[in-house]
């Protein structure tokens, strides 16, 4: 019971991007995933990528209000990682049948679909941001990612006042939106 509460607390921490909670989950689960990937034709880098992606999937899931944990974090992370790695292996054409299947897994196909969709959206936004150029990129990053106030950004980027910065921000935002919607289909 206690461990269940613990896990809930950890997931809450994860959802609010609390680095201590993330560190705990990381410590508890990473070596298991690393061993799995290493034992199945993967490298240390592969293990890190797979694990971090699973963490992001868990994070996305934990963020949604309707989220209920139906299994242990360990099982969930392992299931996602297994799925991700098998897919990667298949893509690389080095699929081997010897994949370790002793640990408990749960079906994660649905979550994977959601995660993949978000991954694609992330990639579109990322591309749009990167093709934006300076100072727009840094300005918007400061505003949307680092959640800085207009006053602070104005000082940082050398605008005479916050309104000027705001104006500049809107100009950049319009360009970003254009770039984003050229790739993103609303109908999807």
């Amino acid at each position: 019971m206690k461990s269940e509460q613990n896990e809930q607390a950890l997931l809450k921490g994860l959802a609010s991007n609390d680095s201590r909670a993330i560190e705990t989950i990381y410590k508890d689960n990473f070596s298991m995933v690393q061993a799995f990937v290493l034992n199945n034709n993967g490298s240390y880098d592969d293990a890190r990528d797979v694990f971090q992606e699973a963490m992001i999937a868990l994070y996305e899931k934990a963020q949604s209000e309707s989220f209920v944990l139906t299994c242990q974090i360990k099982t969930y992370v392992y299931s996602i990682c297994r799925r991700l790695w098998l897919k990667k292996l298949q893509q690389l054409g080095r699929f081997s049948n010897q994949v370790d299947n002793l640990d408990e897994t749960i079906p994660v196909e649905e979550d994977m679909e959601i995660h993949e969709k978000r991954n694609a959206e992330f990639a579109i936004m990322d591309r749009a941001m990167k093709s934006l150029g300076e100072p727009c990129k840094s300005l918007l990053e400061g505003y949307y990612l680092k959640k800085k106030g207009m006053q602070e950004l104005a000082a940082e980027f050398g605008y005479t006042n916050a309104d000027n910065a705001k104006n500049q921000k809107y100009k950049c935002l319009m360009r970003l939106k254009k770039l984003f919607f050229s790739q993103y289909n609303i109908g999807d």
Partner: protein
Amino acid sequence: MDDIQLLASIESYLAGEMSPIEVAVFEALRKKTPEIDQMVVEHKLFQHQMEDYAATYNIKHTLHEVHTRLLENGDVNEGGELTAKAQVVQLWNRYKRVTAIAASVGGVIALVISGLVAYFSPVVNGNQIQQLSKDIEIIKRNQQYQGSLINEVKSKIPNGVTVISGGSGFLIDAKGFIITNAHVLKGTAAIVVDSKGKEYKAIIVHIDTKKDLAILKIDDEDFTPLKSLPYSIGKTNADLGDEIFTLGYPRNDIVYGVGYLASKTGFNGDSLSYQIQISANPGNSGGPVLNNNGEVIGVLSTRQAQADGVAFAVKSKNIFECVAEAKADDPSLENLKISVRSTIKGTSRKQQINKVADCVYNVKAFSKK
């Protein structure tokens, strides 16, 4: 400029920063102009996307930080960045099970092998005692070394046979009866070579593996029997500290060695033999051990492998027993008479050696195919 103002309005409308009046105005505008309505919906979606992007971006950032920190603290290991110690620990952790299995398999195999070795190896003496017969490699080497002797060796050893073992032997009867160790005669026949390099064919008359003694008879037309032997074969036990000497063929040349009687019993209290302190090598087996009086007190047979200079000799009275048994087996040996009179007593060691050397033979045993 218009677009920017519109965007600003939409943003503050969506953020709920507008006053109720402004909201009413804006909503009226939105209803009237479908383009603006469209823009609001679009911007809402975009904002949602941006939030997701920001969240994912930040969690990725945190994950990266956590990973780096854990890596630095050693809670997480990655091949390339490991210190040597951590690497060993990680390798150990990874191969612990395999290592354990390998170790137990190795252990079992070691046990089985040592068990088999113990089962099949001779029971007595084990490897602590080394028989002093020469094996074939040593003989081969000596033959190369003693190039001049090779032709003669070839002439007497029948074609198509291999020399298996060799050692020393000495006459106990001037008519050509030679005593040597049983372990020297691994084959079925032998030739003997005297100190001048002359070879004679010999037949095996009797073998007593218990006493480790064997009797050979020179059966060769070239052999001219001696009138008498210079030494006698002792019937009584020798005394501790008696100075002794031996002659033998650890090489193809006769080699002299000197020492003393160290114990009246042999290895592990074996009462059939003496322990003597003498430098002995493979090939010395079967050589005579004589005291100062020119009396053979034993037949040099083995040495202790781990100790330097510790050798063992079969007591000479066993020769009498061995000859008696041989006579009982084969009546034709009636005329075998063991030398009992020493003619070299009281002469100088040099003269003793000179005389004795004529009666000590290099024994080469071979087997017929």
